[in-house]
């Protein structure tokens, strides 16, 4: 599926919930379903700075598409990660580089995330795009 379609899908899913609390609960549920990242990829190199919680992000390329693996020690952060992976994993580098990322605002959670977390989110997106740029240059 195209990135923008996935994003629209996510926005629609969150639209069902009226309160931030229900949205948080859904996010937490999603967080629980993030596939485990291997310990070897939980390396210092893969840590993203700027979060109170730790975030690891690892990427691999398979058949021209980038696969992202990520984890966090905080469950809300993991929920956010799950949205990012669903959106960006298994996409090709160019699409990732060009992707719009305002769907986080559209699901209405931005003002309920702490500034640190919002910052962390920005850093994650930045790192995802860096991976895409790096992989696109490897071609």
């Amino acid at each position, binding site marked *: 599926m195209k990135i923008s379609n996935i994003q629209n899908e996510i926005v629609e899913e969150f639209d069902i919930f009226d309160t*931030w*609390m229900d949205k*948080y*609960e859904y996010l*937490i549920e999603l967080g629980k379903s993030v596939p485990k990242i291997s310990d070897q990829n939980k390396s210092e190199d893969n840590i993203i700075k700027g979060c*109170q*919680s*730790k975030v690891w992000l690892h990427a691999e390329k398979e058949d021209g598409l980038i696969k992202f693996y990520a984890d966090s*020690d*905080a*469950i*809300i*952060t993991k929920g956010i990660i799950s949205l990012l992976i669903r959106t960006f994993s298994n996409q090709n580098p160019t699409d990732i580089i060009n992707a719009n990322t305002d769907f986080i605002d559209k699901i209405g959670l931005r003002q*309920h*995330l*702490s500034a640190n*977390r919002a910052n962390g989110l920005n850093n994650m997106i930045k790192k995802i795009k860096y991976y895409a740029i790096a992989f696109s240059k490897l071609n």
Partner: protein
Amino acid sequence: MIFNMNVLKNIELIRKDFPILSTKVNGNQLIYLDNAATSQTPNCVIESISDYYKNLNSNIHRGVHKLSQLATEKYEESRKKFKKHFNARSTSEIIFTPGTTHSINLISNGFIKFLKKDDEIIVSQLEHHSNIVPWQMLCEKTGAIMKVIPMNEKGELDLNVFATLLNDKTKVVFVNHVSNALGTVNPIDIIIEKSHNAGAAVLIDGAQAAPHFEIDVKKLNVDFYVCSAHKLCGPTGVGILYGKKEWLEKLPPYQGGGEMIDQVSFEKSTYADLPNKFEAGTPNISGVIASGIGLDYINKIGLTNIKEYEDYLLDYATSKLKEIDGIKIYGESKTKVSVISFNIGEIHPYDIGSVIDNLGIAVRTGHHCAQPIMDYFDIPGTIRISFSFYNTIEEINILIDALKKASKMLS
């Protein structure tokens, strides 16, 4: 629980003095339980700042004109207030700085003069980074060695080990009066006495103690005592440094500039007398004056009343928290004040903090600038609630409900 019922009766009146306490967060009434990070500010302090800029604002000392004289008088009046409050011998012993961190750096930098390679200095495992890093920098510059007083699982310092660390190479011992991360009140009277017997100077970081109980530097016989006005109902940007006159005279000046000199020529400058020697440049004049007003406010309520009431809140909150499934409280010293640090089950403290923030409750999460304590417990951080005299039992009840809700969501 025995406490002064008058305080409790007046609590709603006291709360009216703090405009921020009636703000809303995300539609909920703000519940501010982050007092160890910074205390809230009563109207009289806010007005003192406005009044300063509307009627007095002027650079102090050396000015002939009336504004400058009035501002100087008010500034020096604030010094007298802190002198009296901490029972210093003279106003020369009270130095205004930009904060506790600055004060500690001022002292640790001065000790370069007194330390040589292989001299020893002693820190506790309970310290805030502000009372660790400046001394590490001192060790780097001098080759001195830092020893650590360990703590036990209750968050209490091990005084037996401390005794073995002291020897004739020990030059300075620096310990906080109250741990900002765990709330432990340390036995600083014993630490000071033992250190002095070994010939070492003692700096006590009182940032978390000064807001909660009386401090008498003369009785403590402490060499340096430091705290921050922003935790004492005062404004940001002001620290109070008490130093024994003998020590302050011996220590070299920290910063060069206006005020701190007597004569300047390119060949040689001579330094001004205390306290000016340590107050280079234009100080935070409005801040220092307002800090004195904040102190007055606290003294009007009375630290004995405050201690009694805050202990009551602490006991109540501790027992209520213990009813929450999976809770683990860090820091269970018999002598504690104002602070409770905890985690719930395996839930990341940051997650709890985020959820209850949306419910209007302000707590701190993380390592609280005390990583060595987190390392000891092998945790990334804790949730920390910290009380002030304007908090209420009702707020604690709301907190407990919120924590239960958050814990359910996040497990």
